[in-house]
């Protein structure tokens, strides 16, 4: 814990503030009167995954620098989280969560996933400020809590373009009973955190402003949600160092200008439908991403997941799809710029479908064992979802085998 503290202290002011907040939380908790006001809870996953290809590396989402190939690895899906909740009084609460999982810098360094204070002026209105998880798409803020969902990992075709996990900012959510159901709305605003790995470099997305919200209606086992979010990137992709190192090319100025991400805004739209009643559960999610930069392609994605519990075992099947639209060919002044720009744009293309099937077995209280097969059937141009692609040999098809042990405590 002190090592983590030191590391956080060496970083910027925001992080220091958050550390202060969370250490305050821990100290306060130690002093708090005995009772139910303080709770410490945790979750974790031990996962192993392998694919049938060594031409690309398979990642859980784009926040991971390296991925799985045709040898088993425990890195991709394993995680451990610890969360402290301190209920100061009925209106005020403080929450801090530390998460360790394989990330952009190829380590499992624990980080403060969230640390915030929550104020509830009335029972159905919640206001939070601090470091917050973002619900970009439905279920996006519980992606690492394997115990909370059916599959080994959230369907990749839908979720891997989402390397954003948290913001420094605030959100407000309000629930209003409507008929026999409940209408719920949430808005959030803040500055994003984190890095997105690009080859050996990092795309720094810190302090990029993010704004979003959703509206959902829940009635019995039915839940319908529409959401929108956008982010305005503060920095350019680290294309120059990546091209210099990987391809020995100097990034021409015209191409750099053409491919800039700085001050461009990307929009995320999604629609989710969940039906969860008795032994049956179904999820249908659709999203559309509208990129402001020419370096990344617009895309449409979706998935359908069906599960049916039989005793302690829930077999499931699903189908997911992602497809990005073609960008017009760059027509810049010089041929080298055109070539480089086209090469980079190709790298953000995705066009594939995945059929997946597996089972979740609730072996003991708060422990689940899962096994899953993913059959990825895509075009050889589908490079965006992966790491370390060997463009010449990748044919767009592979199978992924996964097992995991998920638990909460």
């Amino acid at each position, binding site marked *: 814990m002190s090592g983590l503290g030191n590391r956080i202290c060496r970083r910027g002011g925001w992080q220091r503030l958050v550390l202060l907040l969370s250490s305050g939380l821990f100290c306060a908790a130690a002093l708090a009167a005995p009772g*139910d006001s303080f709770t410490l809870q945790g979750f974790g996953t031990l996962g192993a995954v392998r694919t049938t290809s060594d031409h690309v590396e398979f990642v859980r989402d784009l926040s991971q620098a390296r991925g799985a190939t045709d040898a088993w690895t425990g890195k991709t899906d394993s995680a451990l989280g610890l969360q402290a909740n301190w209920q100061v009084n009925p209106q005020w609460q403080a929450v801090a969560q530390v998460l360790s999982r394989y990330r952009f810098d190829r380590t499992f360094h624990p980080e403060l996933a969230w640390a915030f204070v929550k104020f509830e002026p009335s*029972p159905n209105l919640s206001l939070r400020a601090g470091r917050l998880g973002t619900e970009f798409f439905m279920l996006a803020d519980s992606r690492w809590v394997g115990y909370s969902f059916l599959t080994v990992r959230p369907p990749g075709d839908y979720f891997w373009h989402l390397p954003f996990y948290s913001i420094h900012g605030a959100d407000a959510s309000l629930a209003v009973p409507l008929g026999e159901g409940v209408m719920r709305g949430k808005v959030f605003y803040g500055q994003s955190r984190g890095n997105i790995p690009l080859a050996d470099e990092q795309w720094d997305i810190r302090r990029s402003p993010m704004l979003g919200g959703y509206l959902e209606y829940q009635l019995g086992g039915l839940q319908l949600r529409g959401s929108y979010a956008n982010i305005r990137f503060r920095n350019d992709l680290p294309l120059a160092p990546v091209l210099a190192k990987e391809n020995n090319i100097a990034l021409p100025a015209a191409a750099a200008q053409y491919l800039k991400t700085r001050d461009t805004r990307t929009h995320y739209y999604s629609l989710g439908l969940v039906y969860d009643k008795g032994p049956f559960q179904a999820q249908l999610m659709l999203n559309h991403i509208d990129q402001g930069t020419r370096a990344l392609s617009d895309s449409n994605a979706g998935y359908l997941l069906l599960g049916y519990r039989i005793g302690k075992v829930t077999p499931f099947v699903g189908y997911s799809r992602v497809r990005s639209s073609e960008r017009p060919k760059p027509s810049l002044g010089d041929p080298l710029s055109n070539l480089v720009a086209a090469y980079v744009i190709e790298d953000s293309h995705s066009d594939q479908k995945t059929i997946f099937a597996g089972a979740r077995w609730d072996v003991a209280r708060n422990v689940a064992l899962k096994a899953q097969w993913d059959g990825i059937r895509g075009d050889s141009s589908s490079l965006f979802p992966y790491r370390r692609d060997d463009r010449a040999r990748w044919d767009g098809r592979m199978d992924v085998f996964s097992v995991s042990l998920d638990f*909460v405590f």
Partner: protein
Amino acid sequence: MRRLFFRIALIVLTGLAGVAHAELVVVVNARSGVAAMTRNEVINVFFGRNRQFFNGIEAMPVDLDDAHPKRAQFYKMLVGKDLSEINAYWSRQVFTGRMQAPPRLASTEEVVKWVAANPGGIGFVELSRADARVRVVYELKR
């Protein structure tokens, strides 16, 4: 003769089933002003979707320990879900920082006490346990 035998067997079996599943009811504090609830309204409160009764009083649901047999029966009858699914639901709510699960008590006797002590208290108990301190607002039917 055979028909009569079947009829008797049916009556005996139904009787046994009735004993095994003593009726569960949802109770609120007698002074809360809530008279009756629908199944969906009960679901909304116990899953933390709606935390207020129609009259503005904060709904304070209370649950039973995981090992208590009535807990499994309650969720089975209310939403047809296993406890592992209920716990998975709450782990999502907790670890996204949205909310904590309702407090859990060891017996339905304690639930009655807790509901009687909190104006917005709401819990589930055997019908036989519901006394004047609480009001039955929903009966769980198979």
